[in-house]
């Protein structure tokens, strides 16, 4: 086991994310909660969309007039909802791109994430169709322009005998049926989007779909304020006999139209399909080998379900124990889903290092870094340390670079994820001579394996099984979030522990002296 691995994630994005931490705190950082913010935007779209639909007239002649009536007065609810619906769409597009870029830069497309990545890619055409199709409904100059451009774009595919574009030659040829189709496309596609988004979350357990209250409040307020201060203008109704010289244009959504008229329909298809194919191909490219999956030892599994509860990717299921009988259960790992994070190993009650067995066998364990090898490293490290009472640092390999804090009095034990640490190891280290234990993980919403930091904190704070026992002196244990790039936090925490150790030592000596004085 090496002490560091290739930095997971991209330094530039990480820098941005950590910069945002300073304003929002890591637990409320929008860049760490992009998926949840997307769901928030969707909720805003649903509410405002339903409001608009209630006043919408699905007919050629009535459509624009109905939207115009709704938005007539700048200070009406209709005007607010219209602007909010538009700006939430723009936010949705921006946040989708950020979410995609983040996962892309962090290399989150391979192996156990393949399904999440591909289902994410599948969401893109739905988002595009729902957003562009919304403009047609308003049936103003922009809506007409977008409908014609979309029709001309689709006509470039050899799909239909009759060009769609012919629908927009003459006002007389427009039918109410076309508007029913528009509504069907817009609402139908956005509801399908929910379905695909649900699919998108099938492989992650306990997906964070709600932003923190502060973030939800701030984001909604921003969109509301924008809607009030800069309401979406009501342009002229569609006129098939004219192409307006200049259109107030929503670049976030309608850029494919501009791209098409600057190049050609087939060129635009080429660009869009090539980007889509490139994204979809990523999970199939050769690259880093897959981490070994967790392995269950039926002899040592008592069926407590902790690994099942804690697995961030739903890779553990519980089955009837084949030999133990009497309703006992056994954990079963689906290697295809397993991230190899070790969070299950940290959850298993069998991982108590105090057992005096020669070889520690866990109910569920990581072949690359077993709890037995961890205990061995801990024992030998403490024995070999030149410091009388060293500090033990359990450090996540994805987090702050622990090689930067190498010192004689620090024993560093790297973990696949901080969640791999069975809390009993903390107590064991302290009993075996460590002055203090520092557990370094990533931030709540920065864990490479999603839930590792959260479960580590909960276990050490005795809020989740397996708990760090109440008898352990909390002053000698510290849990710290320090991600790659935040090595200074590690250094500071170690210094503080040393100082505290020295102070306690001093006090103990004074106390000792008083006893005998």
């Amino acid at each position: 086991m090496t002490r560091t691995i290739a930095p997971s994630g991209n330094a530039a994005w990480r820098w941005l994310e950590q910069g945002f931490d300073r304003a929002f705190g890591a637990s409320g950082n929008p860049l760490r909660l992009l998926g949840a913010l997307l769901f928030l935007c969707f909720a805003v779209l649903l509410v405002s969309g339903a409001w608009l639909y209630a006043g919408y007239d699905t007919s050629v002649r009535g459509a624009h007039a109905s939207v115009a009536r709704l938005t007539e007065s700048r200070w009406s609810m209709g005007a607010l909802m219209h602007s909010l619906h538009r700006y939430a769409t723009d936010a949705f597009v921006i946040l989708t791109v950020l979410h995609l870029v983040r996962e892309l830069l962090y290399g989150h497309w391979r192996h156990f994430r393949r399904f999440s990545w591909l289902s994410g890619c599948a969401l893109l055409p739905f988002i595009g169709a729902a957003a562009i199709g919304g403009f047609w409904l308003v049936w103003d100059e922009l809506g007409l322009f977008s409908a014609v451009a979309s029709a001309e774009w689709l006509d470039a595919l050899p799909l239909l005998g009759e060009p769609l574009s012919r629908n927009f030659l003459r006002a007389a040829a427009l039918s109410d049926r076309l508007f029913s189709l528009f509504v069907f496309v817009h609402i139908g596609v956005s509801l399908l989007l929910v379905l695909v988004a649900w699919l998108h979350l099938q492989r992650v357990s306990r997906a964070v779909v709600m932003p923190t209250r502060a973030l939800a409040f701030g984001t909604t307020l921003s969109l509301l304020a924008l809607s009030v201060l800069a309401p979406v203008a009501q342009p002229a109704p569609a006129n098939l006999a004219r192409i307006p010289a200049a259109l107030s244009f929503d670049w976030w959504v309608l850029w494919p139209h501009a791209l098409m008229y600057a190049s050609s329909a087939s060129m635009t298809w080429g660009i869009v399909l090539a980007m889509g194919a490139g994204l979809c191909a990523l999970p199939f490219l050769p690259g880093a080998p897959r981490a070994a999956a967790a392995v269950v030892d039926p002899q040592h599994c008592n069926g407590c379900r902790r690994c099942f509860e804690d697995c961030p990717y739903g890779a553990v299921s519980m089955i009837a124990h084949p030999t133990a009988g009497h309703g006992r259960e056994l954990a079963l790992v689906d290697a295809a889903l397993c991230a190899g994070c070790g969070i299950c190993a940290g959850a298993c009650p069998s991982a108590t290092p105090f057992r005096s067995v020669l070889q520690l066998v866990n109910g569920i364990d990581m072949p690359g870094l077993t709890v037995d090898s961890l205990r061995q490293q801990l024992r030998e490290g403490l024995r070999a340390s030149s410091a009388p009472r060293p500090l033990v640092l359990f450090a996540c390999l994805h987090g702050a670079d622990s090689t930067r804090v190498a010192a004689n009095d620090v024993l560093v034990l790297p973990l696949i994820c901080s969640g791999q640490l069975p809390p009993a190891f903390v107590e064991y280290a302290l009993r075996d001579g460590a002055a203090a234990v520092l557990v370094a993980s990533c931030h709540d919403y920065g864990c490479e394996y999603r839930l590792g930091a959260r479960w580590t904190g909960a276990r050490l704070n005795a809020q989740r099984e397996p708990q760090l026992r109440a008898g352990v002196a909390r002053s000698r244990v510290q849990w710290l979030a320090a991600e790659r790039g935040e090595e200074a936090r590690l250094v500071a925490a170690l210094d503080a522990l040393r100082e505290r150790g020295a102070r306690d030592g001093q006090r103990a000596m004074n106390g000792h002296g008083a006893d005998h004085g």
Partner: protein
Amino acid sequence: MAEADNHARTRHTLGWRAWLGQAVLYGLFALVIGVFSHWPPYRHLPPDTAVIKLSVLHTGKPKSACHQLSAEELAALPPNMRAPVSCPRERSPVVVELDIDGAAAARIAAPPSGLSGDGASAIYTRLAVAAGERAIAVRLRDDANNADFAYHIEQRVTLAPAQVLVIDFDAEHGEITLQ
């Protein structure tokens, strides 16, 4: 509540600087959305330009006429298909030519659609032309056995800037329309 407590472990107590930072970032978010949701305006056409949409949906004449089958031809067919007259279903392509001020602006030959070539031919194209008075000539041919353009129209039209002129074919009345 347990999870909220955990969050507290990593949450920095936010100072006034952080709140200011949040306000600035939310403002930036709204600004970026607001600005590019309607600016810069999109100019689809250069000034003083009109658009001609030339579009036809028309089924050409059968490519070859019906003919009496000879005895040998009939014998070659399976018994259940021995009809004495054969009418090939394949249609002629539709050819449209557009001249503007005497110069060729479009020459389009659209093959019939359908697997056996028995469907309508479809044409849709748009041209940007300078506004003003223009001499428009359109010719349409729908019979592969006749090299002449059976339908034609010549007309002077005054195109206003940003106007859309639609050139279509009305098969029912057999005429090319400009509107």
